[in-house]
């Protein structure tokens, strides 16, 4: 049972009028991220879908203070917020950096690695929609193998997704977790926990994207759930090096009833050119990872 099922913060920080696409996974997740983080928070983010969600000057749909930064500098911007607030003796504020997978796995990785290595006291959130969705679905290193994007329009993406969690775990962080917009209470619990921990915390949210992935906006929750049920996305947290499955992934691990990836792949237009061999490779990629997680969960 999720810890906070009946005590989710009733305050809303994402007001009506946000400009994300219909069925946006990020907007579902972000509402709960903010509910968990609450008022005493400063956000910083680069040009991404979140910039669009927050709205056009001089209006905004989000009531938490936010600082826009350049694309490669999200974690460095957070470092600056933390340093500036420390210098002014304001240590009660939680600094949160948020970027998409392009701004995290690709362009922001240098600043993120630097900030994490320095043990900067902040939460880094990567919302992973598996491509440059804000610019129209270009390939990123988070795009899964076999997906069509506007820059892999004929042959599909040939390489597997980068394992960002392993990269971030190599920084010896006090807390890392994966979440999904389809499981908001699991997500909420993890952000509540992350807010209490000191040091660099890395949170990755799987957020399905209707226009980028090629499915109907009404299916965002269903696609998000299938990602978890097939093991494409595993919900877990790593606290001081200790791995723990959470939520739906925990049940799947206990019961051993993970679904084949085809259940997830067949519902999305982006996989329509995927070859049988790519499908096998994707299944192997998921199984290898899942078995590693199972081993860590036992140990």
């Amino acid at each position: 049972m999720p810890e906070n099922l009946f005590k989710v913060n009733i305050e809303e920080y994402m007001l009506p009028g946000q400009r994300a696409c219909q069925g946006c996974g990020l907007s579902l997740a972000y509402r709960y991220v903010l509910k968990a983080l609450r008022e005493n928070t400063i956000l910083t983010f680069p040009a991404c879908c979140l910039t669009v969600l927050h709205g056009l000057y001089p209006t905004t749909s989000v009531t938490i203070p936010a600082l826009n930064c350049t694309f490669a500098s999200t974690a460095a911007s957070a470092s600056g917020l933390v340093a500036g607030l420390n210098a002014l003796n304001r240590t009660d504020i939680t600094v949160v950096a948020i970027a998409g997978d392009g701004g995290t796995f690709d362009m922001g990785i240098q600043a993120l690695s630097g900030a994490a290595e320095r043990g900067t006291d902040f939460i880094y959130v990567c919302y992973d929609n598996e491509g440059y969705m804000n610019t129209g679905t270009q390939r990123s290193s988070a795009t899964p193998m076999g997906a069509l994007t506007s820059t892999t329009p004929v042959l599909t993406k040939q390489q597997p997704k980068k394992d960002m969690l392993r990269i971030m775990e190599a920084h010896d962080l006090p807390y890392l977790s994966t979440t999904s917009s389809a499981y908001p209470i699991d997500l909420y619990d993890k952000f509540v926990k992350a807010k209490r921990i000191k040091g660099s915390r890395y949170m990755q949210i799987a957020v399905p994207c209707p226009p980028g992935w090629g499915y109907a906006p009404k299916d965002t929750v269903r696609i998000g759930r299938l990602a978890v049920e097939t093991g494409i996305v595993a919900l877990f947290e790593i606290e001081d090096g200790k791995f723990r499955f959470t939520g739906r992934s925990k049940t799947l691990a206990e019961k051993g009833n993970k679904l084949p990836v085809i259940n997830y792949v067949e519902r999305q237009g982006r996989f329509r050119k995927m070859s049988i061999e790519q499908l096998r490779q994707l299944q192997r990629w998921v199984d290898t990872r899942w078995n590693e997680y199972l081993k860590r969960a036992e140990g």
Partner: protein
Amino acid sequence: MAEVQIMTGNQAAALGAKLSHVQVVAAYPITPQTSVTEMLSQFIESGELKAEYIRVESEHSALAVCISASTVGARVFTSTSSQGLLYMHEQIHWAAGARLPIVMCCINRGVGAPWTIFNDQQDSIAQRDTGWIQIYCRDNQEIIDSIIQAYRIAESVYVPVMICYDGFVMSHTMMPVEIPDAEAVSDFLPPYKPHTILSPEAPMNINPVLFPWRRANSEGVLCDGYMEMRYKLQKALDESRDVIISTSRQFAGAFGRDHGGMLWQYKADDAEMILVGMGSLASEATAAADMLRAEGIRAGVVGIRVFRPFPKEDVRAAFRKTKAICVFEKAISYGYEGALCSEIKAAFYGTDIRLPIHNYICGLGGRDVKARELAEAVRSSRDTIAAGDTEPMPKWLNCFTE
């Protein structure tokens, strides 16, 4: 009491930042800037300076840290050179667009390819159009004094300031420097008051997306569009001229040293030939002017101290009486001429000032420029002008061009 010490330009810069009570320093090492960052980390780790020091993983992040720390209300400092400055380029624009009073030292160094670690001014000249105030120093005393002035200027016009000084020629050369009295500096430089502070008490979305037109806020009041904001940045730079000059004067009143506001002159009043330059090159030109005067050529020097905002009125006044100008530059706008030369020519447009202007590109990648070589260039220009060649192509001094 002010104390005189022999020190390098980099020491003067680090001391200037310390005296300005900077609260956040973020920097990444690059030759010849490195020792500035080392000294500041020494000050901070030893507790001499109460500030946060962020040892970033790149120059891009160094300025990112400064931008965000400045946004929450801290006084910030960084320094870099050459490739580091170029790597920051995006952030340099961002800092000015965000109207943050950041002060950064650019310890001037040439730019690759091929690699050079030695001095010229191509790095900061390439940042001309970013919306920063640029001040070029001619000796180590001017570095320490200009940093203190820079915070006062930046924090009154909300425009970032780049203090430029020549790598090795100044950064690693020891000169006597009078260290301004700490209390007098605190009186001269009040604490930083941000125009907007990002904090949970007053939530807002800073630097969001703008569309081309002005847009109404929730009360129906039309707010600036992108272009209005850009106009205000330009206006702030235009208006910063008076602030730079008055700050320079007030500093002189408090500390007894006036580095010249927008520009400085040496024996220029009655000069028939004026040598023009920025930084240590202009300082070297004063020795050349003395040599020329010794042989009967009435030479003088105008050192351009502030390159942005460009001192159009001051330049017009400084050259009104002379007969010819030789502009010496450690940078070039490839495909045309030295940027400083172009600016001076443009400043004369629409006036009755019609002078032969010769442009010399020199000292690129650290190639030595001696006073006697500058003097020789002036003699040759004098002869060429006498022969009727008023505006030849830029000449490359001390360069085998065949």
